[in-house]
């Protein structure tokens, strides 16, 4: 049986205590939220900690609050989010993104904060200790080489969060608290495009909540590409948020791609192709095509990199068709979940 390494465990009772415990030894302490990413990583010995600080008992990090500007506690489980009627009404695209994360039996434990802080992933990295020894390690952990691109000076592990591209697209923010104080930053600033140092938060900061903007007339959606109908991480995610003017012209567009870079990747060319335009067959196609060049899909997930890059255009177009109320393309399943084989 794969087992965890030794560590000590402390359950924090409130945010202040969590921050204080973390501040004692920020490098060797890790926060335990749902544990569905951290614990497998620790079992495979590629994340390490001498002490885990459990956040389960921190009451004011759970739950969904507010009306026009909703706040979601970082410890809110993914399944709580998918069941929340108000979120379903206001941000169905967010609920859809969360519902696409892994599997139902994992979403009961996994949290939204955990999904945002998800370690970057790579087929050379998410392996057992023995496997990584057999390739001599990789840059993200114990080696010098990024096997995805051996001459590259950087690590190309990918951001595999499903919620991040959507939250970036709608302009959500996160609250970070530490013994030094607290700050609220846009979700996209939480990420750094680097496979090794992928979070723009300090080691001593606790992500306590996600702040959703007022919906106003924003329409947002998330399209996920993965092999199976469940369990799988995204090999491509598209978070798109649009606002339309009186004549159906796009006045605001934010499109973020997931799983093609070490951070959610903005697709400004696609956004530019839409601004001022109505959503028509031609404009959504153009915006999709514009995304193709943005994605740097590499050989670090399921599927081939060339095909993933080609699919970026199809998936961006699919998301925009949905937002624009255009008929789905032939054979494209309308519902993003539950479709057999590859689902969007």
């Amino acid at each position, binding site marked *: 049986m794969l087992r965890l390494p030794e560590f000590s465990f402390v359950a924090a009772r409130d945010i202040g205590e969590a921050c204080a415990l973390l501040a004692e030894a920020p490098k060797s302490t890790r926060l335990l939220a749902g544990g569905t990413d951290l614990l497998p990583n620790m079992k495979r010995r590629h994340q390490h900690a001498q002490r885990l600080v459990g956040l389960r008992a921190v009451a004011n990090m759970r739950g969904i609050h507010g009306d026009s500007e909703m706040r979601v506690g970082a410890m809110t489980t993914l399944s709580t989010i998918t069941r929340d009627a108000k979120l379903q009404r206001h941000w169905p695209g967010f609920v859809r993104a969360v519902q696409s994360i892994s599997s139902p039996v994992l979403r009961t434990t996994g949290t939204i904060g955990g999904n945002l802080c998800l370690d970057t992933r790579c087929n050379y990295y998410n392996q057992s200790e023995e496997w990584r020894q057999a390739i001599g390690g990789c840059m993200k952990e114990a080696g010098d080489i990024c096997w995805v691109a051996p001459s590259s000076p950087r690590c190309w592990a990918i951001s595999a969060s499903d919620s991040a591209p959507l939250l970036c697209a709608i302009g959500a923010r996160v609250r970070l608290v530490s013994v030094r104080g607290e700050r609220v930053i846009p979700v996209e600033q939480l990420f750094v495009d680097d496979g090794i140092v992928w979070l723009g938060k300090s080691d001593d900061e606790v992500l306590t909540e996600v702040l959703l903007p007022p919906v106003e007339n924003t329409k947002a959606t998330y399209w996920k590409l993965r092999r199976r109908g469940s369990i799988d991480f995204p090999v491509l995610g598209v978070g798109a948020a649009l606002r339309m003017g009186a004549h159906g012209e796009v006045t605001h567009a934010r499109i973020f791609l997931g799983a093609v870079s070490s951070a959610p990747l903005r697709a400004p060319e696609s956004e530019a192709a839409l601004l001022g335009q109505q959503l028509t067959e031609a404009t959504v196609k153009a915006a999709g095509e514009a995304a193709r060049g943005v994605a740097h899909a590499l050989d670090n997930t399921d599927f081939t990199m060339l095909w993933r890059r080609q699919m970026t255009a199809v998936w961006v177009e699919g998301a925009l068709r949905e937002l624009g109320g255009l008929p789905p393309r032939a*054979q494209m399943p309308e519902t993003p979940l539950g479709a057999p084989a590859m689902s969007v």
Partner: protein
Amino acid sequence: MADTNKRKLIGTSFRRVDAVGKVSGRTQFADDLSFPRMVFMKLLRSPLPHAQIVSIDTSAAERAPGVVGVLTGSDVPVPFGILPVSHDEHALCPDKVRFVGDPVAAVAALTEEQAQAALALVRVEWKQLDTIADYDDALDASKDLIHTYGDDHNFHKKVSLRFGDPEAGFKQADLVLEDTMFFDGNTHLPLEQHATIAVPEGDGRVAVWSSTQTPHYLHKALTKVLGLPAPWIRVIALTNGGGFGGKSDPFNHEIAAAKMALNLGRPVKITLTREEVFQCHRGRHPTLMSIRTGFRKDGSMTAQHLKTLLDGGAYGSYGVASTYYTGALQTVTYNLPHYQFDGARVWTNKPPCGPKRGHGTPQPRFALEVQLDKAAHALGLDPAAMRLKQLQPKDSITANWLRVGSMGLGPCIEAVMRGSKWLERRNAMPPGRGLGIACSSYLSGAGLPINWNHMPHSGVQLKLDRSGGVAVFCGQTEIGQGSDSILAACVAEILGISLQEIRLCVADTDLTPVDLGSYSSRVTLMMGNAAVQAAERAREILARAAAEELKLPGANIVFADGRVFDAADPARGMSFAAAVQAAESRYGTIGTTGSYTPPRAPGRYRGAGVGPSPAYSYSACIVEVDVDPATGIVRVPDVWIAHDVGRALNPTLVAGQVEGSIYMGIGEALMEESAFRRLPEKLSSALVHKFPNMLEYKSPTFLDMPRVHTSIIEEPDANGPFGAKEVGQGPLLPVMPAVSNAIFHALGVRMDQVPIHPWMVFKALEEKRRGGVGRYGPKAFPAVDYGASLDVPTPAEGGDGKARNADDIGVRGGTMSETQRQSQEKPC
């Protein structure tokens, strides 16, 4: 035998005898066992794909906290293997490792964590050898050898067989198609990880409790390696949490655990991690194929020349048999008058391939069924009707000397055509939708045992108790297929008692008569026949005693509903228990035996031992696909499958095997793949499984499973118990080619390779748009010298089953030399 409609159990969907244990968490799988003073063992496995062991130092590990024992290769120097011709494995590698994961040392400690921690303290000095990653490396004569036995260089085995006169056959053809196809490797992925507990028993004996499909062969391997008298070793196979062929070999961890337990005098447990299960492997051989077939205008075949090249991985395993199996069953579905088969297996530095569900036959079946579809298209024929017109007749002998008995493929094809509305819908599909058909056949048990001998393949003993209970002893192993239930039902049916009166004792080499194991779909037919024989013998004894007791000499005594009575006057009778008591009073303790040995096959040429079976099952499958041309993503909404099982002894169990086969077939068709990583040669010699875990090895979920429409076809076979044939493997075979054929029907592109990933369809579509043929598959088949063929005249040519030129061709490679073998092998 009683007439069908009087049967109480056979033919009904009775609740399986192990169901309540399994739904209540009571069933004990190997890892659920623990024994007093038990210690835990871990194996140190090679991080290198191919290397000599220069030295190994375990002294630091021996001193580590909690460690109680350490073993290395010198402690277990005797080689073993499943086939007598390839005893090429060691419990711990003595001098050389051949793949990442090959074990070199074993550490036992008080806890699993301590054993794991101590592994890191073992120091091994290596001398690296060339990495043989694939066919190209294996065919490169300048590279290091993986084994020093086998055929030339890194070829393990070469086979060449010619039946009839294929060249003459090709001359009669109106159309000759030649294709190169590839079937990638995949693995069993049973949910249960292998586990073994070895328990020393008094006076130097040892009991090995293990998740194995083949306790009998594990027993043989243990006997050989441990050097103990066979009766001192007891192997008990626990209910397997899935097998699919992955637990059919004796494994190094089982033998190392036994040795460790004997050394320490205390129980030793090892449970593999999921990654180690991937390293045990024995999965589907990646197989490159060249298939050339001649067709007449009506679609019938005139001749076929099939060449296969199997990537065998690092050890022999079942590989010699696997190689033959890539050719053996091409002849049993459709009439094929002339046939040449050339097969070869190469060594590579990867986990060994072996027998996965269908063992060697899904690959050539894919090639054949896809090529038939191409022929139908070229000739303007309906692919279903074309198949129906050339069925191999029942009660016939094929060109390669396989005896076909019952043959229900015709009704199978008709059933799936009806179910899918093939004729009405095929020419009126919406865009992107397609229907494809393929068929298959599989063995109901191999006709010959692995270790050649004249003894039965399955034995059953009954002990009848004066309480009315019947204890049934049989070496068979429950791996989920329901063999316990079939064993109990066969006995209960004949004796007219209920399942509650049966007590099973199975898969225990000390207590149960040998059954060769749960492989090659042999158990229902072979164990079933043995059980029926044992029960009929008991019935005879009881009937005689009951007739005397009832003073009805010569009466027709019937056994039903727990009673033994006169057929002419059912009121005159007694309880089953009273009948046992009557018999016991007269004859003493009542016990009977039954056994089964398959009929002798007609083939007499070298290699004729692979392919014969007492009965062949047949399947026809129609798959509907929904393909998105913008992405190449293939969805499968519906599958129609008809399977000729001879007689469904329990229709729910039969349907379960069929649906499970479709499941695994869909996985193999669209996603499951044993992919490997070869790092850039300039930088590294590494060769690792690309993703040995359940997240990235894609096993379909609830949401990926097509709806399955199952028809059970019953063409009773005279060789099967109550007419039954196999169902566990055959229905998997047609799924992959039917998916490929359906994709062609949907979009006009040919997938000559599985698994069919979306980018392959996408690429073929792009090629077609640019005016190309629209195909994804291997470009070429390498030049392989298969050597001279054994020349075997067919039955139609008046042959006698022997090769004409056997004396000219001598024993070919692929086997250990006689001296190598005699030094290692004791007679069976």
